[in-house]
């Protein structure tokens, strides 16, 4: 049970949906998730949050000195130490 309502697939505003098309494609490729994951659904209540978070997500993953696996290891370690189950 979430503290806010999670909008259903198909119920997003056109502005949000435009970002979600790209996000879904990326998450399907990276994690095999066939639908909008809950973390993104929770952000859809506020379009600027989706837009700026997605922009940041891409920036964080942009090619550089450390490879994608190392980044995922760091992400996982931070989430564990923050006790974040999601």
């Amino acid at each position, binding site marked *: 049970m979430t*503290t806010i309502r999670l909008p259903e697939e198909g119920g997003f505003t056109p502005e949000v949906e435009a970002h979600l098309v790209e996000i879904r494609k990326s998450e399907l490729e990276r994690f095999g998730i066939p639908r909008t994951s809950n973390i993104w659904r*929770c952000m859809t209540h506020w379009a600027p949050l989706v837009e700026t978070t997605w922009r940041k997500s891409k920036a964080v993953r942009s090619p550089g000195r450390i490879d994608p696996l190392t980044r995922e*290891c760091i992400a996982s370690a931070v*989430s564990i130490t923050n006790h974040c189950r999601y």
Partner: protein
Amino acid sequence: MRLGLDEQGVTEVMAAADQARGLAKLAVGLRLDPDILQSPGRAPLVPEVQAEDAAPRVSDLFAEILAWAHDDLGIDHVPALWRCLAHHPVYFDAVWRRDKAIMAEGKVTRFQKRCVAYAVAVNSGAVYMTDWYAASLRRLGLDDHGFLEVLAVVDYFNNLNTLADGMDIESDIRPYGTYE
């Protein structure tokens, strides 16, 4: 997060995170000022055991650690953390052996483990261990852009963790990739 990592690899990442977190707590508890890249600004809570006062068993460990410090951190002294732990030789020995085993090359590289450990130290607000792992990563060739890449991941996942926890989002991610 797996990207091809097997069970041992995932366990190694968890262990590197657990090790960095434990040492970070110790460094905070001992009120250690960083002494890896500069001189400490104040005395630690527990005095550092000096080489001349060390029991033979502790002396052997100091010699081992000195070689490690030279190779891993690029310094020629035994860091204050180890010197403080030396007051309790059995515990000191156990922590050192566990650290060596966990941070060694495995399915996950030494570099990757140090990226994880640095991120955990930063995330724990532990200045001493942040300095420690930063020195190690510099030795392994991480440049300024690379440090920002690590910090970007730390920042971004603190963003996501806060949203997920704050809104109590149920997990819908399947680690083994099975979706109906």
